[in-house]
């Protein structure tokens, strides 16, 4: 495999993980505009454990992920008291604060960045991303996913049917944070370098954009969205600036025509029925 292709597919793997980190809370109706902050937590925590304590990567990255998830619970409980715009803004502010904190944390290099001593090969990154996808497919087949959908589409009715709306929301938020932390940890170990500036608002925003483009009604949407966002510009061989401009214009027009995203539940249902009764 050429170095170029490997590079693109590694980026795809990171984008897929980020997409599911955004998707989980979104499936419960929460727009998390601060996902990059949780990636940063996973990245820095795992890099710190590898560098300073000599932890093996396979222990450090899951630990970083768990820490991001834990932060998701701790921060999610107060922040999820807010709804709608307020929640979106709270997560947005959170992302900014987290990345600014790392920017000022001298113990992990501050603004100069933080080199990481252990290396995750492309194979490891792909396997991890595949693992995340499989996990998400599994989760989407459970009652938990059904409860998230119920909480999203009608919290009042979900509550009256006995669903713990707050519990589901915090769980979705924290699991999304954990997935983000996992991707962040791998990112640090694959590129052998972390800098706080990478985990900025635009990273969060782009992720949300392609997840919504893919569609949030089904578990396939984020995968399709991430693949589209990563691969199509490569195929077009567009320059970076044109890539973002064209992508943004495309998303705006696409969402105006099909606000529910590319992959929807009824689309899949039609597809499935055709397969069963040819």
């Amino acid at each position, binding site marked *: 495999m050429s170095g170029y292709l490997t590079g693109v597919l590694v980026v795809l793997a990171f984008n897929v993980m980020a997409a599911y980190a955004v998707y989980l809370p979104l499936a419960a109706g929460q727009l998390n505009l601060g996902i990059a902050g949780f990636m940063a937590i996973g990245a820095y925590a795992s890099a710190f454990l590898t560098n300073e304590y000599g932890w093996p990567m396979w222990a450090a990255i899951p630990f970083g992920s768990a820490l991001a998830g834990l932060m998701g619970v701790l921060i999610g409980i107060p922040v999820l008291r807010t709804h709608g715009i307020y929640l979106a803004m709270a997560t947005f502010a959170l992302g900014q604060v987290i990345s600014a904190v790392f920017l000022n944390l001298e113990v992990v290099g501050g603004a100069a960045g933080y080199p990481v001593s252990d290396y995750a090969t492309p194979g490891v990154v792909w396997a991890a991303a595949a693992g995340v996808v499989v996990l998400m497919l599994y989760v989407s087949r459970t*009652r938990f996913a059904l409860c998230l959908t119920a909480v999203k589409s009608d919290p009042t009715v979900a509550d*009256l049917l*006995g669903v713990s709306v707050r519990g589901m929301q915090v769980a979705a938020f924290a699991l999304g944070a954990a997935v983000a932390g996992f991707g962040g940890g791998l990112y640090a170990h694959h590129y052998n370098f972390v800098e706080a500036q990478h985990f900025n608002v635009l990273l969060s925003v782009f992720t949300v954009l392609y997840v919504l483009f893919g569609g949030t009604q089904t578990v396939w949407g984020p995968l399709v969205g991430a693949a589209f966002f990563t691969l199509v510009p490569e195929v077009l061989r567009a320059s970076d600036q044109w890539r973002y401009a064209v992508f943004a214009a495309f998303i705006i027009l696409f969402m105006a025509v099909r606000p529910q995203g590319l992959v929807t539940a009824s689309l899949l249902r039609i597809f499935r*029925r055709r397969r069963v009764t040819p």
Partner: protein
Amino acid sequence: MSAALSISGLSKSFAGVRAIRDLSFEVPKGRTTALIGPNGAGKTTVFNLVSGVYGVDAGRITVNGQDVTHMPSRRRISTGVARSFQNIRLMSHLSVLENLLVGQHVRASSLGALLTPYRLIPNHRWKREARAALAESGLGAYADETVSALPYGVRKRIDLVRATLAGASVLMLDEPAAGLNPSETNALRDHLNALAQKGITLLVVEHDMHFVDSICESVVVLNFGEKIAEGPLSEVRRDPKVREAYIGMDGED
């Protein structure tokens, strides 16, 4: 003791306006009762108080002998009380089956149940149960349809099936017949009668007095948040207080 739902001394104000005043009534177990009254009499507010969407200012609510007055709304379903809304609140982009599965939540909310990949297991018992409940109501053909694609009358009845699957023994229905055509109304009536046959207690808010007459054994009449009469419909409609408050009853015969 045989009251499925008992309300005593219930009061509720919104911004100083008293929506419900010292309201007391009982719904006997297994009977179908209508809650009627002019617009703004507080009927839907009673539903909201019993289901816990609003907290009460004063009074006591018991369901099947259990005091639910200060119980969080989420826990009330386990006492057997469920409700419908005036506008149907199903998840419209999901299939009928998935909507019904949410109804089972109260009986499948352990961590193990939440993480069981039921969708990967053909004929999982939850799906079997939901399909059976649908078939029993003559709606079996709709199981895999998307809710938004279904006629209004069918959606109303799917809402009922969902409540039954939640194990509701006391079901509060907010204007179930509103917006239905005659054949849909008949189907709904049969459905409600079948529920009553199974011993489910129904409390129905409804404007259509023919419909009320055809399914309810007794009625409670509200006006300005107060009970002004109760008893069999034929008696209540002769009550002068009711005639005065509720002019609409005169014309409908």
